[in-house]
């Protein structure tokens, strides 16, 4: 580090103060918070989602399409999908970081986790939107 330059110094916080509580990932506790936020969201959505799934048991595709494509059901499903893929992405990353110690395999695993979670989320969202638009 070079000597402090008074003109570029915009903050009075010390270097230690800037990194405190950010941890090794440099992004702080945002994942911790989002994991709890999405968990609470899914607890609230659990009963409506169970009711939706139960209402579709034994029904054919036409009935499922009609139900899943109706606005309230579609919005509940979209909220649940976003919360769950976000939650599972963070959760799997924690599992990977805990058990995979080889840096290369860890990197590949984390990339695969992101790809899987985003693909699952986007495919589900696409399906719900397609059912909603009635195409």
């Amino acid at each position: 580090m070079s000597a402090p330059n008074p003109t570029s110094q915009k903050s009075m916080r010390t270097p230690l103060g800037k990194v405190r509580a950010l941890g090794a990932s440099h992004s702080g506790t945002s994942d911790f918070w989002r994991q709890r936020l999405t968990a609470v969201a899914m607890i609230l959505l659990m009963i409506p989602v169970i009711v939706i799934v139960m209402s579709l048991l034994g029904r054919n595709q036409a009935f499922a399409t009609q139900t899943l494509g109706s606005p309230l059901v579609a919005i509940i499903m979209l909220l649940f999908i976003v919360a769950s893929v976000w939650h599972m992405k963070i959760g799997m990353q924690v599992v990977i970081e805990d058990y995979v110690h080889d840096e290369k395999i860890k990197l590949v695993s984390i990339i695969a986790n992101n790809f899987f979670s985003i693909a699952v989320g986007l495919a589900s969202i696409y399906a719900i939107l397609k059912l909603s638009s009635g195409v």
Partner: protein
Amino acid sequence: MALSIVHRATGVALYFGTLLLVWWLVAAASGPAAYAHVQAFTGSIIGRLIAFGYTWALIHHMLSGVRHLVWDLGYGFKASEREWLTWAALIGGIGLTILLWIVAYVIGGGR
């Protein structure tokens, strides 16, 4: 208590189980033939077992997660409280799963 690893294991199971959810939704969006494939699978013995396991994993993970939320808020750390929360998650998870499937068979059987 060994239940924290069960929380992780059910989480990982649910992670890969989302493939079933995606398959169901995409099939519904694809058409009657694709949807019939999903129904044939979920109607088979192996499909039913996977769906039952998935239900339990979901309910258990949720109740076990509530336990963690209680701890995050700073409550329930006494030995007796920890024991109570753990047993509640374990028994509640199994009980609710069976109850949901009884309801599902009552509803589904009438169609």
